[in-house]
């Protein structure tokens, strides 16, 4: 066909194991990319999606090799091409926008040079034309002051700006095909929505084909015409975006969509058991067999082929996809949270807490005081009730983790009081807390790879709090550890394992078990699901909820993901630049009226639904420091009133639904504006 830009035929890529076995990462992938279309490739980590994207440029990472198949660009196989010929295609015909542009821009070269390099390699422009083109490109990707930007080094730019530079660089050669490898992962919610919006408009303007690789169905749903779902190196489902998202007829895709928390839906997402098999451990049957709810005997022995379903224009790799519909097939169903009877007792109370990262001056150190008129975190008043889950939400730099650290006693507060149980003041310095207070507050971290000692077995990890707080040993200790493992749904045999022998989800379960080992009153959760795959995230969220229902623990849950927060929390506090913006019951925070910043955040959330588009209401400027006075959000607020917002700290206004909003704009007006 004429309009096919790239076609991939029967592609398998893999590596040789130490024993000499051939292990495939990509298995028999066949697909075509048409002119002008945007294809989304979605899959969890280890699904082979990035390897596929790189193969589309004729690039195979060191250690990997092409087992069979080809990758045709205009009838020439990129995987067999000489590197001199490839240099003429890469960047000129096919360009890549990488994940994490911060590490993909050469640190010693200025932005302008790096774009100029692409221009001089792939266009016939002369020096002055190229210079004009550079500022044109930087302008096109909406970077501020494009002329001076060219003279900056990559490290001087924010994450969003670096990503935009990468886009400009990719556009320099006017390619036919743009490959995007997780281009928005790691960016803040609002920045992500803006970059996505930019990409979509570029695709529309230039009629470039795009291949968008991501683990995030929300982002994929926003940009793609067609979606390819990958699992364990295979395409399991492929078809038009709308069909895939509305009728995910493969059980994996179905489960994946179900496990994504959604703003429009209260309650916890449904979880999928298990995790994706590692390359090399895939047997002869269907690769999804172990996790599938509709699997039959034949799925164990035979691997299904892609089957075309004409009414949905979809290819599906499943024997039983028709049975899926019988299984009460409806994405919108989700586990309703059982409302635990909440006690009205407050368990923790933060009054006027402020925290400063500023280095103490010598004189202040001597007098033991912290002087900083504009601390990182200021005026935090939060009351935590026993048994509730309160969430702190905000983008990077909002101070949410900082507050958590102070509660844990890891960071000294500058002002204010942290009161625990019966108004007893808790020192923000660990050393002044007694063992019982230390036990009562436990932490779970974002990345279990960092929070579990890699040189300890699971048994050693779990025995530490048990020994420390309860002095257990011998048979008793062992029994306790097994009980804990059962609580987090892990078998006894995990005791002798090291963290590196566990999957991401299993590691986080061990971290959860360690926190619960102390029989704590409060557990501080710092982005506990951010490092996990979506299907695993849902399982961990469910686990946390179940444990809480059983044990009546209080959670303080920090996250940047509003949908996750919506799913797990009873109350939400929204933070910007270390100041509270809004606080209230979670179902109300997601209703109007809300603080202008909450509105911006909510608008930027990407839902895995082609009908819900993000609303971009404010610029994604990065602010280095909170403003000296006035409202913390004044720099970006689309509704700013003027001097009042710049000079006066906004008052707390309490809405009829119990939501407290800190804004100068009367609630009436806010509601009116937001509903229109």
């Amino acid at each position, binding site marked *: 066909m004429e309009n096919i830009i790239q076609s991939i035929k029967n592609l398998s890529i893999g590596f040789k194991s130490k024993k000499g076995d051939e292990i495939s990462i990509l298995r028999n992938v066949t697909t075509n990319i048409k002119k002008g279309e945007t294809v989304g490739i979605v899959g969890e980590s280890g699904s082979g999606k990035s390897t596929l994207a790189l193969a589309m440029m004729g690039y195979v990472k060191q250690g990997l090799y092409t087992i069979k198949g080809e990758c045709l660009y205009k009838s020439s196989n990129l995987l067999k091409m000489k590197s001199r010929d490839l240099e003429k295609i*890469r960047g000129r015909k096919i360009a890549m926008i990488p994940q994490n542009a911060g590490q993909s821009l*050469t640190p*010693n070269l200025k932005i302008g040079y790096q774009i100029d390099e692409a221009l001089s*390699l792939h266009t016939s422009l002369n020096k002055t034309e190229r210079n004009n083109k550079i500022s044109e490109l930087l302008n096109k990707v909406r970077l501020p002051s494009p002329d001076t930007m060219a003279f900056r080094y990559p490290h001087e730019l924010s994450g969003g700006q670096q990503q935009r530079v990468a886009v400009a*660089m990719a556009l320099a050669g006017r390619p036919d095909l743009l490959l995007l490898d997780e281009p928005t992962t790691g960016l803040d919610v609002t920045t992500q929505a803006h970059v996505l919006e930019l990409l979509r408009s570029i695709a529309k303007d230039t009629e470039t084909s795009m291949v968008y690789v991501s683990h995030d169905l929300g982002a994929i749903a926003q940009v793609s015409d067609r979606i390819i779902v990958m699992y364990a190196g295979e395409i399991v489902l492929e078809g038009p975006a709308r069909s895939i998202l509305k009728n995910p007829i493969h059980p994996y895709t179905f489960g994946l969509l179900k496990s994504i928390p959604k703003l429009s839906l209260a309650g916890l997402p449904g979880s999928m058991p298990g995790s994706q098999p590692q390359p090399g451990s895939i047997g002869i049957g269907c690769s999804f067999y172990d996790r599938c709810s509709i699997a039959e005997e034949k799925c164990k022995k035979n691997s299904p082929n892609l089957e075309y379903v004409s009414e949905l224009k979809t290819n599906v790799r499943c024997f039983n996809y028709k049975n899926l519909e019988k299984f009460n097939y409806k994405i919108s169903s989700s586990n309703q949270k059982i409302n635990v009877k909440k006690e009205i007792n407050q368990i923790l109370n933060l009054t006027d807490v402020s925290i400063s990262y500023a280095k103490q001056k010598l004189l202040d150190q001597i007098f033991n005081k912290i002087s900083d008129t504009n601390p990182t975190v200021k005026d935090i008043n939060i009351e935590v009730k026993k048994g509730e889950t309160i969430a702190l939400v905000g983008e990077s730099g909002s101070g949410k983790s900082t507050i958590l650290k102070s509660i844990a006693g890891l960071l000294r507060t500058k002002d204010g009081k942290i009161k625990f149980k019966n108004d007893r003041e808790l020192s923000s310095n660990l050393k002044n807390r007694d063992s019982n207070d230390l036990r009562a507050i436990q932490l779970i971290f974002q990345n279990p790879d960092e929070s579990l000692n890699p040189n300890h077995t699971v048994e050693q990890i779990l025995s530490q709090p048990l020994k420390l707080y309860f002095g257990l040993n011998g048979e008793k200790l062992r029994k306790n550890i097994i009980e804990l493992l059962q609580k987090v749904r892990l078998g006894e045999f995990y005791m002798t394992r090291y963290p590196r022998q566990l999957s991401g989800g299993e590691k986080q379960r061990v971290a959860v078990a360690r926190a619960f080992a102390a029989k704590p009153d409060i557990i501080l959760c710092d982005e506990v699901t951010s490092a996990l795959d979506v299907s695993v995230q849902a399982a961990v969220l469910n686990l946390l909820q179940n444990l809480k229902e059983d044990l009546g623990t209080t959670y303080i849950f920090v996250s940047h993901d509003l949908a996750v927060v919506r799913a797990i929390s009873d109350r939400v506090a929204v933070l910007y630049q270390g100041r509270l913006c809004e606080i209230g019951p979670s179902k109300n925070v997601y209703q109007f009226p809300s603080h202008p910043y909450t509105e911006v955040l909510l608008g930027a959330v990407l839902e895995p639904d082609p009908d819900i588009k993000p609303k971009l209401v404010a610029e994604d400027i990065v602010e280095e420091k909170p403003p000296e006075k006035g409202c913390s959000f004044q720099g970006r607020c689309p509704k700013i009133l003027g001097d009042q917002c710049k000079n006066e700290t906004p008052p707390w206004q309490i809405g009829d639904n119990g939501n407290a909003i800190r804004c100068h704009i009367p609630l009436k007006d806010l509601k009116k504006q937001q509903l229109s």
Partner: protein
Amino acid sequence: MLFLIIKRIFLGFITLFIVSLITFVGTEILPGDACTTYLEREAYGAALEACYKRLGLDIPAYERYISWAHNVVQGDFGYSLSGQMPINEVLGPRIKNSMVLASAAIIIGIPLALILGIITALWRDKLPDITISTITIFAMTIPEFISATLLILIVAIWLQWLPGIVIVPTDVTFFELLPNIILPVIAIAMIMTAHMARMVRSSVIQVMASDYIQMAILKGVPYWKMVFKHVLPNALLPAINVVALTIAWLLGGVVVTEVVFNYPGLGRLVIESISNRDLPTVQALAIILASIYVSINLIADLMTFMLNPRLKSLQIRK
């Protein structure tokens, strides 16, 4: 930036100050003093007292340190016991000779190490890498006195191409010195080159595995352009400091090499003054060698400051 440089220089002086304290206290704590160790069995009575008087050892230690340090700052290291003349006069030609030797080794060694390191990294695990890497392992592990001895045995004795032992007065001119220094330079440069080549190799390999090199390849940048523009500047920057540390450490090896070749440099002076138990000279040597060490590191730091855009632009993001 300027602040960083000033701070760095200041720290260098602090280090030298501590070195002077260590050497002074060290020679003070160890049994015997300059006079008893120098005079050995004759250390009694009038001779000892005369010696004490001459060196000023009859006043308290801290006063002696202050006046000694005061003189050192002004460039006066005192009086050599064995040479029976001011230490400055002993040091002058020795420093010059050692400098000639070391600079020649560095001038040959650094470019050679760069080339070898880059070749081994770019042809990693291929024949050029395996060959060169094996040779560098040998070159860097074999002690200088062995390689020097072997050089003399093979080149000077068996082949008779070059003089094996340097027999020249301490104050010869550069051109008289030249044929004599070829073998010592080779001996020193060999070990130095081997060390640096290995560091360059691993640094280049690290950079080659980075995301931005993958990006440069995917951008269609031709291979050699990529190597020179994207790889080397980033790979060599962190290597500067390590190279400086290595060079400074190898100063110890220069001592041995000079002894093997009977070369009249600082190294041989170290052995001579220690054999003669000439403590004032030893102290002077400690300060001088430490200053060389400190300045090599200082130069490396300054070079890093100058070349690293992260430090140059001053806008250091946290």
